[in-house]
């Protein structure tokens, strides 16, 4: 067995166990397939609605990727600004925390009023939900450099910008990537919230909309099938980012003895 297959084995075995228990429970408990469809019913719903789910998935995936890109850019720029300006930190940080308490449906219609029925208001919702972990981890990473380091750089005649470029920025990179991983995990549910709180005019408006429609229309198995797709998508994105981290910040992985 190859190494990567051996690494994936525990998760695969656990999944099989959970699915078996779920199947058994759904069959014998009498809960009913409108409330809890059995895994085989979900699988067959996925099979027979493959085209519909796929088109909606493409919409959602695009939103997640672009929304996360926006969140990363916004989180990083804001983190650097807060790091460089204590005044800005005092002014902006509390508001950034507060922004995480905003229930998106409150502002959803306003966003559509501003930017229309297209993808942009949805990206803004995802960015609003996802920028926060990037911001917090990057701010901590930037200020986490050895306090002696600036002294050394000053005696080597480094300017403020060079100290930032050679020491603070690379030091913050592993933290920023951890923030991005957290952002990614909430990004998928962020896309769900974005779709369900901002109306759309497109023929396929994403898995989030589909799940809400199906759940309300007693198409529970199809709602579960769509959910399973989101589930797998979140995992795939997470590990793709871990791979990127190996390339971008190999020293951080070495020093914490990570074997992920």
């Amino acid at each position, binding site marked *: 067995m190859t190494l990567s297959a051996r690494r994936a084995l525990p998760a695969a075995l656990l999944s099989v166990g959970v699915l078996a228990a779920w199947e058994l429970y759904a069959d014998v408990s009498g809960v009913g397939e409108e409330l809890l469809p059995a895994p085989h019913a979900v699988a067959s719903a996925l099979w027979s609605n493959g085209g519909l789910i796929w088109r909606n998935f493409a919409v959602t995936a695009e939103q997640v990727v672009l929304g996360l890109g926006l969140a990363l850019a916004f989180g990083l720029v804001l983190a650097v600004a807060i790091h460089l300006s204590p005044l800005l930190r005092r002014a902006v940080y509390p508001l950034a925390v507060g922004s995480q308490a905003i229930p998106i449906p409150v502002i959803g219609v306003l966003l559509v009023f501003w930017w229309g029925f297209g993808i942009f208001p949805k990206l803004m919702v995802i960015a609003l939900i996802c920028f926060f972990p990037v911001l917090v981890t990057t701010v901590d990473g930037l200020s986490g450099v050895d306090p002696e380091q600036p*002294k050394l750089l000053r*005696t*080597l*005649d480094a300017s403020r910008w060079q100290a930032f470029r*050679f020491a603070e920025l690379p030091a913050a990179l592993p933290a920023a990537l951890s923030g991005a991983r957290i952002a990614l995990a909430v990004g998928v549910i962020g896309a769900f919230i974005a779709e369900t709180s901002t109306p759309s005019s497109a023929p396929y408006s994403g898995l989030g909309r589909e799940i809400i429609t199906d759940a309300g229309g007693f198409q529970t198995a199809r709602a579960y099938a769509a959910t399973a797709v989101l589930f797998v998508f979140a995992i795939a994105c997470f590990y793709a980012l871990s791979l990127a981290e190996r390339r971008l910040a190999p*020293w951080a992985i070495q020093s914490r003895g990570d074997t992920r």
Partner: protein
Amino acid sequence: MVLDRVSRSYRNARGADVHALHEVSLRAGAGELLAVVGPSGCGKSTLLELICALQVPDAGTIACPAAVLMPQRDLLLPWLSALDNAGLALRIAGRTRTQARRHASALFDQLGLEGFEHARPNELSGGQRQRVAFLRTLLAGKPLLCLDEPFGALDAITRAEMQGWLADALTREPRTVVLVTHDVEEAIVLADRVAVLSPRPGRVIAQLEVELARPRLRTDADVISLREQALEALAAGTPA
């Protein structure tokens, strides 16, 4: 380099005033190695930061060429190779990565670090890390080097080895050096002159000229007798 009656006080993190140095006068001629020894907390690190213009004296004058500090801990950047760490000052001075590497790697070959160019700091031993940190200090291109307990964290065998290496490096790349250490023997093996500081506030309580031929061994009779003199001066300046 000339320090004339330099005094320095500062306020520490708890808000208490610390009188670190009191009317310290020292000098080192071009190419000389001045060692400063003293009990811990006698203001030795403050002295080096004053020479490197990282602090300003409260009284007295400092006349010295541009100086670069090698701090106690190596502070190598974990994401850079040994070669890129050594060449950091060149990058800061605006050279390209390729130029900095070419420059640094010539020195790696000369000073016995060939083969470690591409190792990351966490792959290097303590002694190797200090060597890379010293090369980084050399490559800053300044005439005066301020070394703050460069071998303080090393074991005794590595430390003796590093002292020989440093002496050799300085014959190939002559600089004026101020070496701060709490190890009297190290001071006498390496220095042209040894200044002994009292406990805080640091004052110069003795200066010994070390006019011995190099290379010197810890076991030479002259080294041992000078060491005794320095230790006596230290003991006399330290209240029991």
